[in-house]
């Protein structure tokens, strides 16, 4: 049986040749993402701003959005955000936290459900969520802290396992991935809620997964080819791991794409964010992480202890060229 090879043998793509162009594109995308978030803002779900959210399932087709909106507005809870789920007959109706503070989110939720049921007696309210202002404030804070902590903790781990240049490069790649994901949510105005924070944390984990495989090969090659020029070495390492990068990315993207298209619409945003993140993460490990190593002047000496025992350390490293000793 002939086996499929996604990536031909012995590729020799000069990835690093495009590093300045790629870096310019990446920086521009980051600026664009930040601008998008600043201008359009994120469409925060009730998790982060408080309020009421009701999922309504209609018998047959969902009514016209404008008609639905006017009926929901008539309930008197302010302007509603209405989101339709793909092809289904379900919509999500969200209203902002009522004036007058946190105690009323739950009461407003009752009013919203009662109003919808009165306007559409046939419709079913499948899910009801209300979050008070105090709770949403806490969720926003812990969400932001956990994102920052995850990025720092993972970069720290890489610093410990590799060298500081690698940690910085990883942190920058992560920053790139997370910012672009934020930009995507600002652009599409998909609802940004707790699930999305979890998705971003997952992206952070998996994007690093990729970066580490490349880093691991760079470290190995740095010890193996001590005379090789750094750019060629990074190119070699990226090419050697390219087949694996493409294989794994294909497998994960396949699984996630199936989840996006066949999975429950309740977690559409969550699945879509992860799918996007895998794309961005794969790109960033090739084009963000490696070039930064060039600028931070990583070389064969980066892995030799900078103590008086440098010579002994060098011997040890060459002897164990499998990298078991770092």
């Amino acid at each position, binding site marked *: 049986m002939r086996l499929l090879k996604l990536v031909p043998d012995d590729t020799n793509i000069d990835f690093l040749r495009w590093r300045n162009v790629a870096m310019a594109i990446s920086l521009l995308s980051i600026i664009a993402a930040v601008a998008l978030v600043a201008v359009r803002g994120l469409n925060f779900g009730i998790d982060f701003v408080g309020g009421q959210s009701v999922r309504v399932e209609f018998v047959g087709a969902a009514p016209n959005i404008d008609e639905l909106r006017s009926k929901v507005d008539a309930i008197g809870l302010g302007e509603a955000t209405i989101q339709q789920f793909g092809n289904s007959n379900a919509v999500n109706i969200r209203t902002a936290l009522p004036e007058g503070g946190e105690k009323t989110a739950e009461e407003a939720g009752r009013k919203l459900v009662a109003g919808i049921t009165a306007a559409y007696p046939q419709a079913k309210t499948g899910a009801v969520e209300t979050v*008070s202002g*105090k709770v949403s404030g806490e969720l926003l804070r812990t969400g932001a802290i956990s994102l920052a902590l995850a990025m720092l903790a993972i970069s720290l781990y890489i610093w410990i396992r590799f060298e500081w240049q690698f940690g910085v490069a990883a942190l920058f790649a992560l920053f790139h991935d997370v910012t672009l994901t934020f930009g995507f949510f600002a652009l599409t105005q998909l609802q940004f809620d707790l*699930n999305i924070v979890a998705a971003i944390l997952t992206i952070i*984990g998996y994007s690093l997964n990729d970066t*580490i495989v490349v880093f691991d090969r760079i470290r190995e090659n740095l010890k193996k080819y001590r005379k090789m020029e750094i750019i060629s070495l990074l190119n070699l390492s990226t090419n050697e791991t390219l087949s694996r990068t493409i*294989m794994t990315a294909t497998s994960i993207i396949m*699984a996630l794409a199936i989840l996006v298209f066949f*999975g429950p619409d309740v977690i559409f945003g969550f699945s879509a964010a992860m799918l996007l993140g895998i794309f961005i993460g794969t790109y960033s490990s090739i084009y963000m992480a490696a070039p930064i190593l060039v600028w931070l002047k990583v070389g064969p000496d980066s892995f030799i202890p900078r103590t008086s025992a440098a010579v002994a350390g060098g011997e040890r490293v060459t002897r164990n060229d499998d990298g078991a000793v770092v």
Partner: protein
Amino acid sequence: MLDFPRWKTIGISLILLLGLIFTIPSFLPEKTTETLPGLFQSRVNLGLDLAGGSHLLLEADLSDFDAVQLEKMERSVRQAMRGEPGPDDDVAIGEVTRGNGQLSFIVRELTQLDEARERVNRLTQGVTQGTQLTGQRDWEVSFVDTTRVVLRATAAGRTAAIANAMDSARDIVDRRVNALGTREPTIIREGNDRIVVQVPGLQNPQQLKDLLGQTARLEFRMVDENANPAEVAAGRAPVGSEIVPYAESSDQAGGFEVLKRQVMISGDQLINAQQQFDQQSGQPVVSISFDSGGANTFARVTTQSVGKRFAMVLDGKVLSAPSINEPILGGSAQISGNFTVDSANGLAIALRSGALPVKMTIVEERTVTPELGADSIRKGVLAGIIATTAVLVFMIVVYGRFGIYANIALIFNIFLIIATMAAFNATLTLPGIAGFVLTIGAAVDANVLINERIREELKRGRKIMDAVDTGYKEASRAIFDANITNVIAAALMFWFGSGPIKGFAVVLTIGIVTSVFTAVTVTRMFVAHWLRRTRPTTINI
């Protein structure tokens, strides 16, 4: 590479077999698993977003907590000063005032100052933390201008009082939720002033929310018939009385009554409360019966006050204020107040389970109907099956025999994840299903790393055995490092996330651990046995 000891093979096979066995109960109906021996009863729980149900976060409203504590202290002080029956034992006090977080009064007779001091000190207690005494009292007692006694709650005393109140609030919430006949509710305290209530499979959470929103402090108090209408209209009640509004649900909403401050009987003297129908009007009412102390008081007061009116006050609002037509001696009464059957039933449950020591408000609610949950499970499982099939085909097409080994490992990985979750009684949530699908896509990464490395080593001209051996060894390091980062991310998710996201983090973490085991150790076993058996001269990878 060929060297794969027998004990290792047996050990690995045993783990895989256990994984298989402990997966099964999660797929059987719950009724069946209950009949199995204890070890096989553990199964994966479904989260509220899949099983349907309500998650409610209750927060205590502590804004008037201090005022209520002072009020209670005043009652205790008055009672202590009255002492045992007999005029000699009374300590005469006066000018009792509450405010600014303190209670103060003067002792009228200088000779009774020591006695007063002793009685007040007896009302305060040492604060304990766990079982340890902290050395602090809950109230600080000081004397001003010789005869004025000032009581102020200490910070430690206040904290302890709140913790106490929250503990009993939790018990009362527990009783109320259970009274609704719900299945396996979870009620836990969270932080200083919150209680989480999770009730699976609830069709209509409205009743539950109404029930938990009630403090249910019931008081029977006499109407002050002597109040001057002009004074009352100006918002001033006579000394010893106060103006209390009618409940919104009552016929006389918007109106008010002038009631004596003194409570004739309170809700803690109840022994039972039931929803019934009034015999004349047919309206739903709540019939209550008092304990013997309450019954005696009720009989005495109603005998003395025939023709006067008393008021039933619930949570500071008047429900009704009937006239006493004749003495009520049986120790039972009927509360009427424009109820529906549901609200009367709710009040009966609330009264039976006791009044909440603090008012609780619902600050977060997440309710999913069982239908939507079932729909999510169906679509999630469908996506999982399609994704698994796609990944299995992909691996065979790309890696041939080594792909099949990876696939067997992947299928065992699925069993191991479910079995581990069942063993820990972990909860599967909707994001958890997504985590499952993601894990399936990512689990083959380890095999990809290994297989790609083997391809590389073969290209470099190594012999088959050597190439396979190096492939496993070299790839393992990257696999380990790469998976650690995922665990770090998952740990943070577990820390900050609410229920569904915790479920996602759990699946992710378990999946990472089991996938490293199956993808590295299990496939290595298969490959080693195959190489030893056939000793191939070329391999297709």
